[in-house]
């Protein structure tokens, strides 16, 4: 059983979990959490690719960039969720269509 194959299965399962969470949830924070799980799957895939190809330094550099961008996206997404709550008194993503202007 190859290392890449075993890890790929779990990365695939993590991707499915994240996508499912994003698609089914009626809570904006839970949608962001689903996105976060997706990013974790991508992070693991990059690190695994670096390990298998013997280029862990490059993989680490890319992952550090990914984490910095991820934190910015999360902060802004949290701000958007608060903004939606102030306007609609709920954080249902379906009510995002009510925001105009």
């Amino acid at each position, binding site marked *: 059983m190859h290392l*890449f*194959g075993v890890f790929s299965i*779990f990365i695939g399962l993590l991707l499915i979990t994240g996508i499912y*969470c994003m698609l089914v949830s009626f809570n904006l924070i*839970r949608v962001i*959490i689903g996105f976060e799980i997706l990013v*974790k799957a991508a992070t693991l895939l990059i690190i695994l690719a670096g390990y298998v190809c013997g280029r862990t330094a490059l993989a680490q550099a890319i992952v550090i960039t990914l984490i910095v961008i991820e934190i910015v996206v999360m902060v802004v997404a*949290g701000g958007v969720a*608060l903004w939606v709550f102030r306007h609609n008194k709920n954080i249902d993503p379906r009510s995002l269509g009510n925001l105009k202007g």
Partner: protein
Amino acid sequence: MTINLILLFSLIFAALWTVLTVRLIRSIVGLALTSAVLSVIMYRLHSPLAAVFELSVCSGLISVIFVTTVSFTQRISKDNLLIRRKERFLKYWYLPIILILAGLLLSRYLLTPQFTLIALEPAKELDVRNLLWNARHLDLLGQVVMLLAGALGVVVLFKESKK
């Protein structure tokens, strides 16, 4: 390999708990747990610096951001919680079936990879710090721009509207 498998199963269980639990705070704790397990896996895959970043930023800082966001929003009532729990159970009943089927399909096609890996021997390359500062300096520039954009976004979004 056994330790890797235990860690990978822990990762999936933590992610599933994050998705399936009803309370948002428990979901956030599950996400932090997922990050912590992922950082251990990253450490075992010879990426200690990225593991430290993952543990400190994703497991710590992002959890704090989520808890802050949740604390600003309204708590769900008990009646609504029961209704939502029932709805979630009805909504999520096929998730384990999808996961098992996906696992079986992936194991059928990926456990015996049909491709050859490009480089199995460790390539001689720079240290991660040298690589980041010298070879990938455009990434650093992008990070700085993203951080500034994020700071600007937070200022705009968290600004109280004038009444």
